[in-house]
């Protein structure tokens, strides 16, 4: 099930977890990571939609099936999320983000505390430096960056498999989604992560309930680099998932869902 929204004159493609979107209910907005799209949240969105919340799992501008160009920088993406809430008729929402999407959610909560009722931050660190060769590959549109994002992103155990949802091969799924990204999208997103230095400052501004979800073998945003952020937000809770890499929503979907239920 999808919903028709327009932000900045561009159509936003969003799924609603199989239930019609109703802004009168508590709203949860899901924000994907660099180069990915809404489908990364498929094992969390349907639960929330069927348990009293209204869900928007969005393709950010220029991603997936949404129109427009990818936005330059995390702060611009965060402001877009606020305009998305306006377009959806939502005063306050829980924001759940993965990686880049987590930074976007954090930035939005820090600068627009009156619009964010809770945060779920998966695979987020205070800084997310990106190797120059990955940026070069992303700019050149070669496959190396997609392969490295997949190889480093998926925990080693999940490069062997044993997926909770039967029959799905996550390595290839990650590559397939990244291959669909329009030219320039992955570079835009990685550059946004690389250039964002405001996470500690925004964390200090957050006043809503926050759940951090980390993987113990996450090589892209190691749990150790998440801890200072969690420490900066009084009352926040950090869940460390075992044998889990950077893609906890698909690697450990049930545990990720449980951690998010607590706040969203």
């Amino acid at each position, binding site marked *: 099930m999808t919903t028709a929204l327009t932000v900045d004159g561009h159509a936003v493609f969003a799924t609603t977890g199989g239930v019609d979107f109703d802004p009168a209910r508590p709203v949860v907005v899901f924000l994907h990571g660099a180069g990915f799209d809404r489908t990364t949240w498929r094992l969390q969105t349907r639960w929330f939609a069927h348990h009293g919340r209204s869900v928007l799992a969005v393709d950010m501008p220029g991603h997936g099936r949404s129109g427009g160009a990818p936005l330059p920088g995390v702060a611009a993406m965060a402001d877009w999320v606020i305009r998305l809430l306006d377009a959806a008729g939502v005063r306050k929402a829980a924001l759940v983000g993965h990686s880049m999407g987590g930074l976007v959610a954090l930035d939005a909560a820090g600068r627009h505390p009156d619009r964010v009722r809770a945060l779920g931050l998966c695979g987020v660190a205070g800084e997310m430096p990106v190797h120059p060769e990955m940026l070069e590959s992303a700019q050149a549109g070669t496959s190396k960056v997609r392969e490295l994002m997949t190889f480093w992103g998926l925990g080693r155990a999940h490069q062997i498999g044993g997926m909770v949802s039967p*029959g*799905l091969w996550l390595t290839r799924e990650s590559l397939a989604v990244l291959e669909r990204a329009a030219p320039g999208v992955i570079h835009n997103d990685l550059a946004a992560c690389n250039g964002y230095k405001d996470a500690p400052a925004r964390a200090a501004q957050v006043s809503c309930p926050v759940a951090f979800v980390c993987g113990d073998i996450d090589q892209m945003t190691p749990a150790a680099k998440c801890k200072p952020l969690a420490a900066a937000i009084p009352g926040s809770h950090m869940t460390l998932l075992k044998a889990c890499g950077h893609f906890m929503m698909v690697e450990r979907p049930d545990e990720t869902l449980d951690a998010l239920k607590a706040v969203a």
Partner: protein
Amino acid sequence: MPDAKFLKFDTLALHAGQQPDPVTGARAVPIYQTTSFVFRDVEHAASLFNLEVGGHIYSRISNPTVAVLEERVAALEKGTGALAVASGQAALHIAIATLMGQGGHIVASASLYGGSRNMMGLTLPRFGITTTFVDPRDHDSMRKAIRPETRLVFGETIGNPGGEVIDLPAVAQIAHDAGVPLMIDNTFASPFLCNPLEHGADIVMHSATKFIGGHGIAIAGVLVDAGRFDWRASGKFPTLTEPYAGYHGIDFAAEFGPQAFIMRARTEGLRDFGPALSPQNAFYLLQGMETLPLRVRQHVANAQAVAAFLVSNPAVERVHHPDLPSHPDHALAKKLLPRGSGSIFAFDLKGGREAGKRFIERLRLFSHLANVGDAKSLVIHPASTTHAQLTAEQLAATGIGEGMVRLSVGLEDVDDLIDDLTPALRAAHKG
């Protein structure tokens, strides 16, 4: 910066899809011989039925042992996901039923396994799905055969029985230009020799009964999706892009993206049609897959040696093996099947139908039966068995000569195979 080091084929054939059992520590894949799975509580049950969380409900739809097989084949075929079912024919049927309904049309290679041809040419028309068969080498005819209601282009990596190699990139382009996916039956090549998804195909199917198992003891089929075809952009696949009442209005492409086809095939195809693969058979196939690369390397080597032997034998008129320079698709085979063109091929005996019968009767090691891809060498003479009811003219129309024999070369010592073939060829030649 080092490159990504994804696990390679031989490693995946042993490990993909399985973590050691977290409760018992079992290293081998356990056989979960159970019809159903206990829900943790009412809430968990409802969430499973509503696709809110992953997991198993009932073994008609999914099973942990079968799931290991599915992930392993998906990994070896470089797909985003797979669905294992009770036979190759069940896989083909579920794929078609997932993509189209009444009024749908398929463009298929004329060089197909007879069972596939029967399903498409004789059975599916009763349900309103028709097929136009075309020469897989005649791309103009293929293009012209596509109609507005066409929903699938279908072929085999290596055709049956002439060994026609389908030009995957060219045929994929024809399908994609028309906004439809290309599905390839990769049974004869196995994922070790060719990954059609890497050459533009969108869906791969296998009769896992053959090389994937390799032992001839279990029937199964598998579908693998590349996760690449844009169902929504095509606009021809409402089963994947419009709300489905069977799951409370779910839109598979919107919610599952690259997994849309496999999810619909499982949640509708297996749920409603029901050709579930038994966990026991999945286990047998997993045992076979562990040695797939080792076996197929030897199959290819033996088949090439046997083909070379046949070429020089006076009883033989022609050998249809794509690895031979005389085969019309030899150059294409070298490009798409660089490790070899498998071990199933046909040859024509001089002397027609009677020579074929004499040849078969004299063989001792080759088993005369209707299967392929076994570790043991197999043989069949279509004109005296599967196609015995056809006249010479009718046989010619299907590309089968009266003296054509099909071999599935196994893993025996190749000297023994040639020693078995030699007197049989002599008997065929002398009468």
